[in-house]
């Protein structure tokens, strides 16, 4: 990719007292890209994001957004990005519309036609007080305020929390449209299916360490799949071990479960030498893929 990155984290470290929340993390996201930031709770996702926003400051290292330093140019960066925080809190005594008006007044440059259009798309209710909303409805206000000024970069922390599946779909197509129009989306999530569905690239963070960054398409190519074979009689696991593409094979009675990447042919060739009763195949969750491929890195991070 030749474009300058629209979002760049450069050897970022953040400590809170003795606790290192983010440890020497570096990655870059380019225009037109949806970047999934994946990791379990407490891995350092929100800390990284809050540093990008200049809500907290790096212990060392730096963050750049649209080529500007997150600390020095915070105000200019904020003008051009949209942010949806995790665990969204708004002012309970304002209605949805008042909330948006308040933030629009502070921000400037809001296209209300676009806001109305968006709000219709995700079915937001703007006329009641935020304190009376369900968490899903509050989240919709959060989405609207992040999108309302057509930002160049979107930073979204657990955005689909509380949204029903239909709204999630609509939201994800909105993300895709944004990226196709040249925007950049930084999507933090612990919901694997969400990242799988929309991200172009995905970074995997664990205990403050960035374990790996992978293209989604490449991940799918080498994506592990899991096959479960049921035989008429027990088959020794050794028969499947060492086969091309097979990562792991376990036997439980007459059932063999194997994880493999690439072509299924060598595995099936061996299997059909026995009496196969049934075959079931499924994709392996993204985090299992990471854990499998980056076992050493994960172990190092756990220490």
């Amino acid at each position, binding site marked *: 990719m030749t474009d300058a990155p629209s979002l760049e984290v450069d050897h970022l470290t953040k400590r809170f*007292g003795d606790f290192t929340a983010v440890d020497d993390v570096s990655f870059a996201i380019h225009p037109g890209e949806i970047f999934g930031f994946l990791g379990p709770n407490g891995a350092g996702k*929100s800390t990284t994001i*809050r540093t990008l*926003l*200049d*809500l*907290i*400051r790096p212990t060392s290292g730096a963050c750049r957004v649209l080529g500007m330093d997150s600390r020095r140019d*915070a*105000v*200019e*960066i*904020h*003008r*051009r*990005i949209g*942010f949806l*925080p*995790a*665990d*969204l*809190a*708004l*002012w309970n*005594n304002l209605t949805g519309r008042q909330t948006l008006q*308040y*933030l629009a*007044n*502070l*921000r*400037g440059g809001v296209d209300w036609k676009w806001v109305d259009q968006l709000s219709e798309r995700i079915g937001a209710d703007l006329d009641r007080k935020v304190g009376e909303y369900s968490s899903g409805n509050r989240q919709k206000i*959060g989405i609207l*305020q992040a999108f309302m000024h057509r930002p160049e970069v979107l930073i979204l922390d657990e955005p689909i929390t509380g949204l029903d599946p239909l709204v999630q779909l609509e939201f994800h197509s909105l993300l895709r449209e944004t990226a196709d129009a040249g925007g950049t989306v930084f999507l933090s999530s612990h919901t694997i299916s969400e990242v799988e569905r929309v991200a172009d690239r995905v970074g995997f963070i664990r205990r403050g360490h960035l374990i790996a960054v992978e293209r989604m398409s490449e991940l799918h190519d080498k994506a592990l799949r899991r096959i479960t074979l049921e035989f008429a009689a027990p088959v020794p696991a050794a028969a499947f071990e060492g086969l091309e593409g097979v990562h792991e094979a376990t036997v439980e009675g007459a059932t063999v479960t194997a994880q493999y990447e690439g072509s299924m042919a060598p595995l099936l060739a061996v299997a059909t030498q026995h009496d196969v009763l049934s075959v079931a195949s499924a994709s392996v969750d993204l985090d299992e893929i990471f854990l499998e491929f980056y076992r050493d890195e994960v172990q190092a991070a756990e220490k």
Partner: protein
Amino acid sequence: MLRSVYLKTLRDRWLGAAIGVVALFLVAWMGIAAFAGMGDDAEDFIAAMPEAYLSIVGISAEGGVVGMMLGNMFNFMGPFVIAGIGVSMAAAAIAGEEAEGTMNVLGSLPRSRTRLLTSKGLAAVTVVVGAAVLASLSYGLAAVISGETLAGINLTAATVHLVAVALFYAAVALALAAWTGLRALASSVTVGLIVLSFLASGMLPLLDGGEAWAKASPWYWLNGPQPMLNGVDWAPVVVLLGAVVALALVAWWGLNRRDLGAGGARTPLLDRLRTDPRVGKAVSMLVGSGSTRGIATKAVTDARPLMLIGGAFVAFQAVVVGVLFTAIGGDIGSLVDSMPDAILAMIGFVDMSTPEGFYSGEVLSIVAPLVVIAAAVSAGAALAGEERRRSVAVLLALPVSRTSVAARKGVAVAVVPVVVGLCVAAGFAIGNAVGGLGMAWSGIAASGLMVAGLGWFFGALAFAIGAATGRAQWATAGTAGLAVLAWGVNAFLPVNPDYAEWARLSPVHWYASENPLEAGVLWGGLGLLAALAAVLVAAGVVAYGRRDLR
């Protein structure tokens, strides 16, 4: 400045400030009307007052009864209310948005922290100045409708001094909150400073050469230069306003150099202090770990910080008062003898020349009620606090009935005032022993019991409001407002024999109709306070069981 933030802050705060102004107006009106009704008697009182005394309390002889009452409004109740509003706004300026978690959205806007702080700070200044001006105008109104005149009283100058002092305290809270991000810490430390400087400016001048030391207290400058009589003394006003600007710069510096809080994931103030290596050990010893044994024990231990800090403060003051009395006891008698009933009313007509009277005037009439009511109200509002924090959903999913949860929370309302009362009695006992004052031990025990009784009533009132509405803020603010009114009714109505009977309506009257150090336990008053507290708690428990939770 950000107009939207400024206007929203005003919008969120004007009602609270308006309630404060109305309360001040009511107290001023009540006092002026009571004095005015005395006719020539009041004039005689003032005429009989020694010149030295008039100058101490900042009243001109021409000011008359109105001047006397307004001296009280500008030097005591007004600054507490108006500085309190300013401190609460300043402490919440940025730290409040952090605590609520809304800073995450606000902080991602293309507006700098500096401008946010400026907008919030100016909103606080606007409310403080507006409330002070409106209150002063309302005093004028109170005088006019009572048929009195404002001749000889410089309302404007008194207001200028009041505003400068109130802004100073607000600026302290602003700086503390901007540096730490802890709203509760900033407001409680600043309120502590207000109370300390109030006591310092009142008590230090009683000592030889103490007047000079009293000038270090910001509170002194409300009345020290007697602005109501002499007009604005610009030097201290300029110094105070200069300090306000300096503190605002300190706040700006602190805010721009630190990480902002995230709200939702925040840990409670005490837990954060406990993890701080510098103060952690002391805090842990003071607070212990909250008991998780049951709802009632947890409710009591949750109230522990305010209960113990407040109790320790009042006990400490009681010891100091004991020592002070030994030092100046002889002189104070002659000064107090010359005071008119009107002033003595504020401290309950006690004879300050005896240790019992001195203790009653210095501790039992203002500080002890303040502490016990604050601690009891915080314990009483805790039930509604569970709704605000939404932890109530988890609590009520337990196999415990709703009324039972409420009743167990109510236990804290009974226990907390007793602990504060014990602190008061312990402080009196130590002061009595150290100063060799020879007060009766039974009277000291009775004082502790009466303080507890007052706490029961107001704690139960907060509990009932909170249980019935689910709004912790209504419980706290409503009870505080009623407590101020009750105090005013008890302090000023008895001055005029025609109105004196009405003071019986005030719960403070049942607590303070006689000095327990001399008269022992006032069983009638204590019984009434306890019975009403029991009724209020029971009503709260029933209401809590019947309504939809928030």
